């Protein structure tokens, strides 16, 4: 079985030329954790993770320290709003390079990539690099479990 069978084909995307404010609204409206970024030709050029936006308001020390479990209260750093300049940035400035697979990719490989890159969602593209769907960790993982004899046997 390949990833095409398990993916969702209705995908919420964001354009590389959109600003971060518009992207933030999309995240909220559709309640998603990742937005594939496409250019004017519909080709996948990157992904925007929830964390890329939230990094703007996380205190600097969370990136500098290995361990901050002992910080019981973030105090003045607990309630930061992003600056106007930051939300006006283009999506292309903060997006991450895409980890994606072609639609004919096997489930095993798709899941291994999700695991390796610590992702929750994997964009799926066709041979021309146009976005055709998105497969979440749960989509791929449950599709794999379905193939297990113990699972399919129970159903029979």
């Amino acid at each position, binding site marked *: 079985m390949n990833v095409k069978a398990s993916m969702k084909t209705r995908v919420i995307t964001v354009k590389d030329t959109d600003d971060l404010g518009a992207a933030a609204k999309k995240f909220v409206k559709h309640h998603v954790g990742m937005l594939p970024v496409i250019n004017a030709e519909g080709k996948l050029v990157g992904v925007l993770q929830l964390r890329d936006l939230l990094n703007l308001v996380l205190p600097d*020390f969370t*990136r*500098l320290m290995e361990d901050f479990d*002992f*910080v019981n*209260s*973030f105090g*003045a750093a607990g309630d930061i709003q992003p600056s106007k300049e930051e939300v006006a940035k283009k999506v292309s400035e903060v997006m991450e390079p895409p980890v994606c697979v072609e639609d004919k990719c096997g489930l095993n490989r798709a899941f291994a990539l999700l695991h390796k890159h610590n992702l929750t969602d994997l964009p799926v593209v066709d041979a021309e690099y146009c976005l055709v769907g998105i497969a979440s960790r749960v989509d791929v993982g449950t599709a794999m479990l379905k193939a297990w004899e113990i699972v399919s046997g129970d159903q029979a």
Partner: protein
Amino acid sequence: MTAMIVSSVIFIVALTLIFTEKMNRSITGIAGAALMVGVGTAMEFYSQDEAVAAIDFNTLGLLFGMMILVALLEPTGFFQYLAVWAARLSKGQPVRLMVLLGTVTTILSMFLDNVTTVVLIAPVTVLISEILGLNPVPYLMAEALLSDTGGVATLVGDPPNVLIASAAGFSFNDFLTHSLPIVLVAWLAALFLLRFLFRKDLSEIPANKDAVLELDPDETLHDRKTIKRVLIVLGVAIVFFFIHHNLHIQPSMIALSAAAVALVWVQPDLHETLQRVEWNVLVFFGALFVMVGGLEATGVLHQLAELIGSAGNFSPIIFGVITIWVVAILSAIVDNIPITIALIPVFADLERAGINIQPLWWALAFGAGFGGNGTIIGSTANVFVASLSERTKYPITSQLWNKRGLPVMFVTCLIGSILFVLAYPYLAR
């Protein structure tokens, strides 16, 4: 004559690469050392045996031993504990916070490697400033500047001191009786100056004072057993440092033995411990010894010493003051380690010419230590806090460093010079 020119060119090109940051300083060092030995062997001015003999294993051993102790202490949360404790004690008042964090960093770096100290304290400083709602720059700069200044006080506080002690035969106590009192005055002056230079930032009222009181230092500690063991070993080592001269053992022997005892007692994952050792510093030292050995072999340094000796009849006091300032300026723009390593043979040569160089060693230590305050690249601690700050909302630029650090260098050198002159009869003994 050709040999002198060739060896000088190799050394000067290497220094230029280090100064302009065209190449990593340790890579430059290895390449320069290999070239010096290669060319030296081919032109018969410097042999492989001489190159090995030029390496001061006392210095390397002392640095390595102390690095192992710090490496064992690093992952335990001990440094974070002290920073958090200082923050609580400050009750979130900016001036108090600067004094306490600066003092903790200085005391640690008098006995431990000051780069590691700053590397571990600086991120906690960003944390403390952020939860208080303050700009971290004054605290970060104070930590780097005060620990650089304070490190001059002890034999193990600052790499140039290790070099000078090894060359001049100074004991740990010599530093406590000769350097510490002068450094203490310079350090206090630096603190008051920083208080003045950052008066605007330090008058900020923290947005959330109580946040630091909610920090619990105890929760920062991961491994109390290791902390206890390493601190006991370190304490015993310091006691031995006090009496090493009477026992006729080298400080390097104490540091390496302490490292051995601590390793046996703690039995850490050695791979992880060795990864925390700053190999590039050790390599840089080794390479510079080999390079400077080449300069010595061709007689360049002897010529330089003769030039200095014949350059008018300076009174030794004036000569010491000039040494402080020249070394300070060179240390601010190049790096105090190559400068110190290159000047040591020159001074030794002056001694052979009958000049009393005892006070000059102290002048060298003050210049090399205080000079590092002047620029953003003047010391490794400066470089570290500046690059750390670039990952925060308040980057430290080199212009900012020139405005705040350069006055600190000037004042510490000035106080060093005045006290050098006043204490000259004492330092000359």
